[in-house]
């Protein structure tokens, strides 16, 4: 099984990818419509909550945070594998990433945007959110640099702006191809503007490579630090169940995990919707699946580390929360998280599962369900069973407004992502050509060797 056919003509690559900008399968419009509808639900909930106050989310004391922060972490997590595929694997010269990194990077950008929205809907006075930014203020008031939330705000903005830049820079040669092949209209104007006069000269390619590599190197530490900082929101606090040293690596592993399974889901959808069967091959899918399996095991291990360090510590309050998670109100969800996060990925170890599309689609959705539950199980049990017994509240249940917003966020993400894939080439044409070229060169060499060198 090959990652890609060596004999695909370059013109065919152009034609196929440009075709995705023009005529996707009907399913595309169905997905886009559903996404719009879901987003509409989210908007409705937010308008209602904005008008009425956060009480309609059924938050209370002690449950000060709810699904908003859980889903925020979930979306931050989703963003990480894009960087893994596009930057880390780029540095490692893993060329199988080439047909799929573009959409993975787009996933990074859009899931970060989605995560940012959750911060906004979470705060009580949305209209004053800019207080948390370090802007020059005539009264000399800075935000509080001690607060992990502030680090969060800064890390996310940095990561978002760098990943938009990375996505854009990597796309310039392809935008030039679009510009040259697109019929007249607003799209041609857009591509002309965005391709920055790319002509493919030697000098341009050299500068392009250096820029791309530089941003890739810049992005990798950011990806690690962003989720470590999100983990710091919890690890730096004093609450039982959050005050855990292993949280930063645990969060990063969880992020890569949910990101990878998100990539599998989107891989399968894009492959069908945009007829990318020739580029997004099963062989590449198999590689991501194996990567996901490895990360799933890392996540499972770190989970076990957390449980063990709590269980064998003398911190009774943390221990109580662990017991509460396994036996209390949240037990079905907590065990669901263990099942979806640690048991379901075991199926990925089987070769037949690694290339079965319906199976992988179902598994990847389950994995992400598990990862969403994981984030919820970090937030809710600590609030329900904190230090102060008088304020224990095991019965609080998020209202439909919260669920609606979570639902809407998936619509918003899918909408952005689908529009992106229709407007911009979601498979990197120039890099697929490189890949085909290198592979055919390699093939020729081995053929010559077989025939026996003179």
């Amino acid at each position, binding site marked *: 099984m090959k990652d890609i056919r060596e004999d695909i003509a370059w013109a065919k690559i152009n034609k196929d990818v440009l075709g995705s900008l023009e005529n996707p399968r009907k399913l595309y419009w169905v997905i886009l419509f559903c996404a719009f509808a879901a987003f509409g639900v989210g908007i409705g909930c937010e308008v209602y909550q904005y008008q009425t106050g956060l*009480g309609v989310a059924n938050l209370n004391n002690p449950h000060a945070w709810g699904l908003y922060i859980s889903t925020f972490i979930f979306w931050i997590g989703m963003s990480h594998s894009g960087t893994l595929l596009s930057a880390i694997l780029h540095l490692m010269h893993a060329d199988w990433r080439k047909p799929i990194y573009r959409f993975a990077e787009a996933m990074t950008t859009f899931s970060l945007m989605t995560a940012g929205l959750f911060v906004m809907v979470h*705060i*009580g*006075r949305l209209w004053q*959110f800019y207080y948390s930014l370090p802007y020059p203020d005539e009264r000399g*008031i800075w935000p509080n640099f001690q607060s992990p939330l502030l680090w969060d705000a800064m890390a996310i903005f940095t990561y978002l702006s760098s990943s938009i830049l990375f996505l854009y820079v990597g796309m310039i040669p392809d935008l030039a191809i679009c510009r040259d092949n697109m019929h007249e209209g607003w799209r041609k104007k857009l591509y002309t503007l965005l391709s920055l006069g790319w002509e493919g000269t030697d000098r341009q390619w050299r500068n392009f490579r250096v820029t791309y590599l530089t941003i890739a190197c810049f992005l990798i530490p950011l990806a690690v630090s962003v989720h470590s900082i999100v983990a710091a929101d919890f690890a730096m*606090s*004093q609450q039982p169940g959050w005050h855990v040293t292993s949280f930063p690596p645990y969060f990063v592993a969880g992020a890569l995990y949910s990101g990878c399974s998100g990539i599998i889901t989107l891989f399968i959808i894009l492959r069908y919707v945009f007829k990318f069967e020739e580029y997004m091959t099963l062989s590449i899918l198999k590689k991501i699946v194996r990567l996901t399996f490895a990360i799933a095991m890392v996540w499972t291990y770190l989970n076990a580390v957390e449980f063990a360090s709590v269980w064998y510590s003398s911190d009774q309050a943390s221990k109580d929360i662990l017991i509460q998670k396994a036996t209390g109100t949240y037990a079905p969800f907590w065990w669901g998280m263990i099942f979806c996060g640690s048991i379901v990925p075991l199926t990925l170890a089987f070769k037949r599962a690694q290339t079965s599309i319906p199976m992988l689609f179902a598994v990847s959705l389950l994995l992400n369900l598990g990862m969403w539950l994981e984030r919820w199980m970090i937030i809710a049990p600590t609030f329900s069973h904190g*230090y102060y017994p008088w304020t224990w509240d095991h019965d609080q249940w998020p209202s439909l407004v919260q669920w609606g917003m979570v639902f809407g966020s998936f619509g918003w993400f899918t909408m952005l992502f689908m529009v992106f894939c229709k407007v911009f080439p979601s498979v990197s044409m120039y890099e697929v050509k490189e890949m085909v070229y290198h592979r055919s060169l390699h093939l020729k060499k081995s053929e010559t060797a077989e025939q026996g060198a003179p």
Partner: protein
Amino acid sequence: MSVNNLLENWSQFRHFHPVDDKPHDPYKWAMSIDLDACTGCNACSVACYAENNLPVVGKEKYAHGQAMHWIRIERYWDEDDREFPDQGAQFLPMMCQQCEAAPCETVCPVAATNHTADGLNSQVYNRCIGSRYCSANCPYKVRYFNWYDYPSDDNVWPAEMNQQLNPDVTVRGKGVMEKCTFCVQRLHAAKGTARSEGRIVRDGEVQTACQQACPASAISFGNLVDPESRVHKQWQAQQVALDKDVQTKDKEEGGSELRGYRIFEELRPYPSVMYLERVRESAV
């Protein structure tokens, strides 16, 4: 405001708060609550509602855990085999402990909650953006969030009730955090009077609303650094020091006979409220 602000040598201000702190001068507001005297009558809570313009949220929201009581009376049933009504109960009034090293202060992204020079944990409503991180990190869970726009939309004070609102205290709109202030408006007024007379506030000159309303005089409030104050004397008699996470008396073998303790001392928030343990009937 300039970048120079950021370049200053801030490390010179770093210290283990409040252990290495300058002593509060001339005020450190503190409390002591005698649980032996407390009857659980809730007068303190009612007084607090009246003094601080707390919204009365009604049954339904109360059941949802959205009550705004800055001071709450907690009831703990005695676990002997007696049944209600013979079963005994203990009460504990709980409000913001005005911690010296408050967990809520460091985590606020916009620095809306700060420590004042006289040892209060202040909440700046206008600066608060409602991230609720302070509440998340508060071990006592004594911070209350305005889940609704109580003063206007919710109409918690019908027209004629507006007349009873305390003009010295603001009403808070939706989306901000609030909590017990030790009746900071009274403290300010008393300090102002004292300053104009060129002295410091005398013990007993200022009372918190809960203290004033308590029929059993269970609550005493005052200036901890004033050696003549009742609070100071009580803390001293109970050998409870503000800047310790374990009191010397508790390290002694067999514990101490003294009743004074602070809640969650071991988490090192250095709370400013000392409780005097109830003397059990069985122990007498």
